[in-house]
């Protein structure tokens, strides 16, 4: 549609200005990451002196050495994988069958159940009753509690239900003719036909789990159960409040800031690794959710 050769002079100027603005915004988006990476590989002294701008100053990996020898770091990293994988599987086990059932016109009380689920998107009891409920259920400081209590949300069910509804009825009828029951219809017909939608939801679950921090911080007390994000938060809090750390490490090759930056880099790397793979799904996913929210 856009054809440079048909552009008037004014159009060309406009296109160039826009491209430059886009470039600036892109660089502004990227820059903080480059800056953090540069800080993480700089010496504590150079970072303290505010010398780091774009590239590492007095290149060193001391900050990484400081982090990578801490067992808590590796434990929290492992925990994050457990929460992400376990939580995502748990989510799919609830969401996929529920979305299928809700998409069937023959479901009794379908309107009621739809409303029952959608209502939770618009009204929720809030932090305190949720917390007290978790305590009453004996799910405080429980890894299983974290995995179970955040497994389902209305939005993902509705998103997948919408997709299932768009699958022609004839597919199901054909499978029924062959004597398939509900589970077989779901597993052999709907799931294979809905791979993009299920991939999208899986992606949403993975991202939410990987980044989940607030409730993990509130609900988990044991050091050996916390995920990476909470470990990061603890480290951030203790490092930035701890003047002593800054002073005693002044001559050392790392400082509170370079260590913080190193942890940030360590926790972003997995996201960057899967990012190209997930990108093709999320654009689609956003639009699926927008069709009939």
């Amino acid at each position, binding site marked *: *549609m*856009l054809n440079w050769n048909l552009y008037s002079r*004014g*159009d060309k100027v*406009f*296109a160039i200005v*826009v*491209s430059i603005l*886009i*470039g600036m*915004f*892109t660089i502004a*988006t990227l820059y*903080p990451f480059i800056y953090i990476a540069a*800080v993480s590989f700089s010496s504590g002294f150079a*970072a303290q002196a*505010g*010398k*780091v701008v774009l590239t590492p100053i007095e290149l060193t990996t001391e900050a990484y050495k400081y982090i990578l020898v801490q067992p808590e770091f590796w434990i929290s990293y492992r925990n994050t994988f457990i929460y992400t994988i376990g939580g995502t599987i748990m989510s799919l*086990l*609830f969401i996929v*069958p*529920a979305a*299928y059932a809700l998409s069937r016109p023959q479901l009794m009380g379908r309107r009621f159940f739809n409303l*029952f*689920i*959608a209502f*939770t998107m*618009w*009204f*929720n*009891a*809030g*932090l*305190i*009753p949720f*917390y*007290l*409920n978790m305590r*009453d*259920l004996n799910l405080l400081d429980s890894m299983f509690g974290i995995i179970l*209590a955040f497994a*389902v949300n209305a939005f993902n*069910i509705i998103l997948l239900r919408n997709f299932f509804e768009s699958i022609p009825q004839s597919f199901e009828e054909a499978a029924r003719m062959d004597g398939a029951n509900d589970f077989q219809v779901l597993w052999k017909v709907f799931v294979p036909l809905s791979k993009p939608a299920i991939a999208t939801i899986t992606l949403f679950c993975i*991202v939410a789990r990987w*980044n989940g*921090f*607030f409730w993990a911080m*509130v609900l988990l007390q044991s050091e050996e159960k916390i995920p990476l*994000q909470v470990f990061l938060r603890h480290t*951030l809090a203790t490092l*930035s409040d701890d003047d002593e750390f800054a002073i005693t490490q002044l001559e050392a090759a790392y400082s509170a*800031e370079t260590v913080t930056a190193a942890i940030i880099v360590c926790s*972003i790397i997995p996201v960057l690794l899967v990012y190209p793979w*997930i*990108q093709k799904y*999320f654009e689609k996913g956003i*639009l699926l959710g*927008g069709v009939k*929210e």
Partner: protein
Amino acid sequence: MLMPAIVWFIIFLYKPMYGLQIAFKDYSIFRGVADSPWTGFEHFETLFSNDQFIRAFWNTIKISALNLLFGFPAPIILALMFNEVINATYKKTAQTIVYLPHFISSVIIAGIVITAFSPSVGIVNTVLGWLGIDPIYFLTKPEWFRPIFVGTGIWQEAGFGSIVFLAAIAGVNPSLYESAVVDGASRWQMMWRITIPSILPTIIIMLIIRIGNVMEVSFELIILLYQPATYETADVVNTFVYRQGLQSGRYDFAAAAGLFNAVVAFVLVMVANTLSRRYSRTSLW
């Protein structure tokens, strides 16, 4: 097949709604939700005479208003600009990069902000130093909290938010542009006379959704970025609930604050949905 999910909803979302009654009770851990004595609206009376709560309420509104004013147009402008980029590779690369921050956790975002704005290390103060300006302790200054918070929000979400508008732009009838080209219209004119009017319904729907979510500021990030020195401008209802309830153990009082927030939010969503239905017949449910 629906039942596991329904049971889950009852246990984890509807049962806490039953637990909300502690907002009207003198809650004691030992007596539990049901057996604690009723106190009527006592907590709400305390709440509305509590300066910190009133402040938190207005801070919520103000931060949301700023988000609306600056954060809402940003992805629209970005989408319109992406639409004008001619080189497909350049466009794709830029999109890939600007979507990325959406996938980064609030803890990391906070870590980046804290490092970048730090008085000794931070790049922001380094640059100010070049200009001969003394270091500013940004994160301890109440007047800087909202600009930093809203700016961070734009940095993180503008790119990802543009996807919806780009999709709307992709849906515009190409023949409109073709006839505009025949009429000798410039790209700038086409943007104002064709693209923007065509995506106006999407813009209005997204605006209505935003208005429905006014009470929802990303309080996770606030918890990570604020400190007592900045409570004055940074404390919102949810962070107030968090401190009063989860940190100080005043569960009943905090639940009352949370309930007030949830009711206001619910009313806003209802109003938004009615508006949406009237405007576009695509109601939110």
